[in-house]
């Protein structure tokens, strides 16, 4: 059991979230807030740039879901409905035992949020404003009416995403208040307290693979932002 450090009180800590996962999470929070604000203010140049940032994050996260640290991989946290039900039952019965990464329900929550985010970003790429003045980088490929439909979908999916984020925050509060388990700290510093009979495997996140992912995400985003016209 690879434990990173031992605090003065003798509690042992294990890493459960790698740095790219945590950076992805908090950059996404910041860019979503900024996108909302710039959209409301009709600051469309900023809104587009912010959207490109989210697109790059999304591409990186999908890549990282295949080659990232143990807890970042889709194969690790995507479980069937039976596992999700079993987990819900174990929560109701108690005592609570923390999952070594995303739990079976949290994994579905992550996938749902990523899919919703992807739908919002793709719709935004084709969106056109009501005056035909501002548009996403791929709006040239669609008609004005289709672009307007994309803009409406973009707005609707954002509300859907807000609902999922609210659910996400409520779940975290439930863990904090009812189960007395802090999920926020580990998403900031990456570590969680563990006891001796709670084995947590090493993350094995590769910095060079992370670098490669950043390059891939950057290139893909640039090409899309140019409307595939290079």
């Amino acid at each position, binding site marked *: 059991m690879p434990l990173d450090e031992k605090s003065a009180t003798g509690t042992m800590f294990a890493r459960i979230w790698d740095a790219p996962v945590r950076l992805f999470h908090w950059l996404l929070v910041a860019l979503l807030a900024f996108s909302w604000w710039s959209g409301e203010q*009709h600051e469309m140049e900023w809104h587009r740039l912010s959207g490109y940032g989210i697109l790059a994050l999304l591409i990186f996260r999908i890549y990282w879901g295949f080659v990232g640290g143990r807890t970042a991989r889709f194969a690790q946290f995507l479980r069937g409905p039976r596992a999700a039900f079993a987990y819900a039952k174990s929560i109701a019965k108690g005592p609570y035992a923390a999952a070594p990464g995303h739990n079976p329900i949290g994994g579905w929550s992550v996938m749902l949020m990523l899919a919703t985010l992807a739908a919002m970003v793709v719709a935004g790429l084709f969106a*056109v404003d*009501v*005056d*035909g*003045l501002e*548009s996403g980088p791929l*709006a*040239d490929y669609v*008609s*004005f*009416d289709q*672009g*307007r439909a994309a803009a409406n979908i973009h*707005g609707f999916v954002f509300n859907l995403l807000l609902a999922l984020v609210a659910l996400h925050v409520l779940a975290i509060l439930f863990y904090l208040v009812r189960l007395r388990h802090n999920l926020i700290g580990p998403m900031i510093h990456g570590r969680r307290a563990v006891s001796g009979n709670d084995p947590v495997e090493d993350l094995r996140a590769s910095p060079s693979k992370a670098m490669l992912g950043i390059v891939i995400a950057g290139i893909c985003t640039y090409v899309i932002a140019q409307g595939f016209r290079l």
Partner: protein
Amino acid sequence: MNPPRAFKITHISVLSTMVAALTMAGTLAAAPAAAPSPQAAVTARQAGYKKMGGAMKALNEQLKSDAPAKDVMVGAARTLATTAREQPRLFPAGSGPTAGVHTDALPDIWTDRATFDAQMGKLIAETGKLLTITNGGDVAAIRAQAKATGATCSGCHRQFRADS
């Protein structure tokens, strides 16, 4: 073979056609001759604005490209200038959000009609200027005037259109 039933169907369809014709005649008789009905006005002005939005999109796409096609730009500018002239009469009294029809037009259009009409006048002037400049073919000048025209659109929308 079932002749009585066939006859019945024909009978009903003749009857319903007659009823429909009578209803239509009644509607036509009741409708005022000149001003469009609120719903017709909303439908017509929305169609007009969509045409203008599409033209503006087409124009901006050309201005973004490395080699703007003049004929496309002139076509778009003509659509903008022509359609702009048709829009003012499509806001008759009663065609606001109170009419029970779906519209993003704000009530201020009818309570502050002078300002609205001035904005409409500005739209006609700017789109007319845009057509003239586009015919001239100077891309930098077209770009500047397209921006000015767009500012007229969004300026009026901020004031008189519900932000959705």
